[in-house]
């Protein structure tokens, strides 16, 4: 989905609020959130792709205003409701107030094509795909061309794994893009590398 989470290349943001040895957590509840979503993954209540997708499904105003750990909490609670552990009404009764959850999921998809193989040095184009469900292709590379510089082991295919759809595991390619091709005349000169699932790629002849 073209969600609010897909931030790469968005303009208008100010300086990074940076400090050396910056904290990971600021409040005790944040550690509990971090532990409990990880417990739910470990116990098989949901998987990492479902977890990431439930964050992406947050209503955009909520996504932008929530802290990192509030987003994590919202995903955990949404999935507890969707997996039938508790109803939203019961959660709100226990929390003694409104409990904002993520928006409903759209359908996922399985692998796009057969096992296309790519090797280092291949020139590839990112397919011009628009899907309503989970996808790990940042919009800033859609339709862009790059060069394969590495390949990973096979991972669960996120577009399927976040939706309970059957799919074969797929490797990703580390693809090198030029920032000046991603954002012509509007980026600092650099190479930008993205881990791209084979299903998102087509070979350039």
């Amino acid at each position, binding site marked *: 989905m073209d969600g609010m989470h897909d*931030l790469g290349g968005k303009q208008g943001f100010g300086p990074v*609020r940076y400090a050396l040895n910056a904290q990971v957590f600021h409040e005790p509840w944040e*550690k509990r959130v971090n*532990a409990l979503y990880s417990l739910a993954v470990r116990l098989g209540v949901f998987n990492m792709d479902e977890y990431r997708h439930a964050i992406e499904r947050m209503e955009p105003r909520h996504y932008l205003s929530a802290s990192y750990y509030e987003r994590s*909490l919202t995903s955990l*609670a949404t999935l507890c409701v969707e997996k039938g552990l508790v109803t939203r009404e019961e959660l709100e009764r*226990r*929390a003694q107030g409104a409990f904002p959850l993520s928006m409903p999921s759209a359908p996922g998809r399985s692998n796009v094509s057969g096992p296309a193989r790519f090797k280092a040095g291949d020139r590839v184009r990112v397919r011009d795909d628009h899907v309503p469900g989970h996808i790990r292709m940042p919009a800033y590379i859609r339709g862009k061309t790059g060069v394969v510089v590495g390949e*990973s082991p096979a991972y669960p295919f996120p577009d399927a794994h976040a939706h309970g759809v059957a799919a074969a595991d797929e490797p990703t390619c580390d693809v090198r893009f030029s920032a000046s091709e991603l954002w012509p005349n509007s980026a600092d000169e650099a190479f*930008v590398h993205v881990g791209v699932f084979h299903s998102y790629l087509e070979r350039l002849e």
Partner: protein
Amino acid sequence: MTEHRHPQQRTATVEQRIDAVQSVLEERGMKPAEFIEQANHLVEEQWVPHNGARVVAKAWTDAAFRRRLFANGRDAVVELGLEMPRHHRHLVVLENTPTVHNVICCTLCSCTAFTIIGLPPDWYKDLEYRARVVRESRTVLGEMGLALPPEMEIRVWDTTADTRYMVLPVQPPATLGWTEDKLAQIVTKESMIGVARL
């Protein structure tokens, strides 16, 4: 904020909300309190940047290890007693040189090799870093105190899958001949993310 069914109802605080979820998991027999205690130990004692610092120091002093680290990072860190979660199936180590600078990010969420370089700091997870570092790398690094010479090639790595990245900084010339333990003391989390050079 997304709740329109009870407009009169105020939104519960984040503490009230996590309390509610925790009580549900407790009733389901999932032992959340025990797990929180274990997890706190992991994030405070086990998943610390000193792990990655040891990897870097070893790579600086042992050429054979350095080759194994580039060939298969995940297997190589096991030699130092370090481990990665099962779903992190691949660790790619990015070599800085006098003319190449690597920096990592996750524009879609905030993924990192957290068992090796530690959990990501707050600014890494902020919207500003995620939005800007892929497009304005040199500017953003400059704002963060790392002014790179114009001829330095910048390589940004966006963690979009479960491959994990870490930067291998250049060893400062003044530290040649130091022991691994002493070298590990100078390697920072920031240098392994790539927003600082040593």
